[in-house]
């Protein structure tokens, strides 16, 4: 396994015969593309309609009078809807960023230890980490709610950050461990022969090489925290504390018929994570597969 992540280049097979399988593959891809993209396209189309134009049967396939009114309303701080939406947006950004920073700080040493050291209990600890991934949020809700009350964190973003951190950690450690496994141990040994302490070897040799892994882990933590719903829904009740998923739900349970507004909000909520993903997708996809697919 190379460190820099170039996978073996697959030579193109001959294109002489376009056989039935290849056609089947193409048709399948087109259908999948339709399945994937059509709902997103319909979201965008609805979001630029007026409330009246959206509620028609048969629908306007292409909006007759496209309007950005829904977006303007959501992004206008003077408007009460816009003020709420922007506050939710900012809350989500704050919680996700803090979670990401803390997750990286805690996961890096843990993943390194799991990858390199052999201490008693190492295996058990690692499986504990993996097993955590399996338990659903709902099991932890009641006790965590009570715990947060004891800690005085109910209705604060601290409760969310602490929770997301914990539940993001197992996967973060697992992803990062995959990266550390692929960094040749000889590099560190060489550094230690040259007189570096183990910590120096870690900081100066391993850390720089694991930057792609750290980026991937950070994106993963960010997206997971940004999209999290159930804890935010349970722990936060004050309107000015809500994160986007809960805020949108609360808002639109009151305005059930404003579908253009709802679609515009869904779109705006998706923009940060989709952009982040598209820009950094190489790291992201690699990180996810690194742990499970070894070669």
């Amino acid at each position, binding site marked *: *396994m190379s460190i820099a992540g170039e996978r073996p280049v697959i*030579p*193109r097979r001959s294109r002489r015969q376009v*056989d039935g*399988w290849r056609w089947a593959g193409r048709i399948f891809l087109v259908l*999948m*593309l339709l399945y*994937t993209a059509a*709902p*997103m396209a319909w979201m965008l189309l609805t979001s630029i309609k007026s409330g009246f134009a*959206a*509620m028609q049967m*048969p629908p306007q396939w292409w909006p007759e009078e496209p309007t950005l009114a829904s977006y303007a309303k959501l992004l206008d701080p003077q408007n009460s809807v816009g003020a709420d939406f922007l506050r939710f947006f900012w809350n989500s950004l704050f919680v996700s960023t803090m979670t990401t920073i803390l997750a990286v700080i805690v996961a890096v040493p843990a993943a*390194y230890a*799991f990858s*390199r*050291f*052999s*201490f*008693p209990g190492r295996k058990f600890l690692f*499986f504990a*980490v993996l*097993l*955590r991934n*399996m*338990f659903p*949020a*709902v*099991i*932890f*809700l*009641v006790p965590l*709610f*009570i*715990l947060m009350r004891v800690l005085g964190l109910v209705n604060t973003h601290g409760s969310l950050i*602490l929770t997301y951190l914990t539940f993001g*950690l197992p996967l973060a450690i697992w992803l990062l461990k995959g990266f550390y*496994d692929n960094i040749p*141990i000889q590099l560190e*040994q060489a550094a230690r022969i040259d007189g570096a302490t183990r910590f120096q070897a870690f900081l100066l040799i391993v850390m720089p090489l694991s930057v792609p892994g750290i980026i991937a882990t950070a994106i993963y933590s960010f997206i997971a925290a*940004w*999209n999290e719903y*159930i804890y935010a829904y349970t722990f936060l009740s004050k309107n000015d504390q809500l994160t*986007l*998923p809960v805020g*949108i*739900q609360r808002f*639109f349970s009151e305005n059930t018929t404003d*579908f253009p507004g709802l679609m515009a909000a*869904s779109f705006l909520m*998706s923009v940060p*994570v*989709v952009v982040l*993903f598209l820009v950094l997708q190489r790291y992201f*996809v690699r990180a*996810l*597969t690194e742990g*499970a*697919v070894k*070669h």
Partner: protein
Amino acid sequence: MTTATGRAEPSRTSPRGEPGALRAMWQHRVDYAYVLPSIVVMLIVIAYPIYYTIDLSFYKTPPSLQLRDKIFVGMENYTAILSSDVFWRVTWNTVVWTFGSTVFSFMLGFGAALALHRDFFGRGVMRAILIIPWVISAVAASYIWKWIYHSDFGVIGAVLVGLGITSRPPNFIDNVDTVLPALIVVNIWREFPFAMIMMMAGLQTVPDQLLRAAKVDGANAWQRFWHVTFPHLSSVSTVTVLLLAVSNFNSFIIPWIMTGGGPSNASHIWITHIYELAFGRQRWGVASAYSVLLFLILMALGYFYVRALGGNESKDRGT
């Protein structure tokens, strides 16, 4: 692979008997420092809640979260659950939901990975588009699909009417028979990209020489897939299916936002049902007992999960 546990400090590991264990732990005390932050956080947020849930499942609880006046009732909560009709209904829904979502997500994702394996113009763009549903929030996805399924103005209904298949737009969400399949379609929409990513990475590990050799020996496309590609992917497939199954078993957002479990429990799965018992009806004791049952099921699943992932790890060491 260069993991080679213990090679960093071969002198420190003493593989001697029992009395050595404590000494080994002491000798490795510095190593624990690297893991300590994770362990402390997880003990607070994970171990305590598990203990608390088990404890609470033996009590009859007052509706407030001021849980001082709970009454010990032994196994009563458990017998009440197992003898209720709703339990079996919800369990069946969960089985259908988990099985349907996992199987179809895996097959569609695997198919897409195979179709995208060969390089062609626009492959990168296509891959990116196919992955987007997995990145966007499940809450947003639920609202998008709720709008698509809308009983009066939904786009699917409009298409069906336009094609002359039905005279009136069907109401998928409020129909006891169609609601669960309709939600599974949404779930697959969000989950298949994960299977696709995993299988794409897996496909890259299949040695090209083997495929070419098989071709020279006269194997057709299907035989090459079935006898060369597929056996190579068995461990990735196992891990992918298990991860999908676990996350589907644990899903909450899509049913909760789209239907809230209705109509008449037709789309309640375990997690949404537990949530409603606890936070909707404030029956904390019963909800805890449910959670403990859930634990037990997940433990059984977890056995396979750890074996699949652990097997992968030990194989990794061997090379």
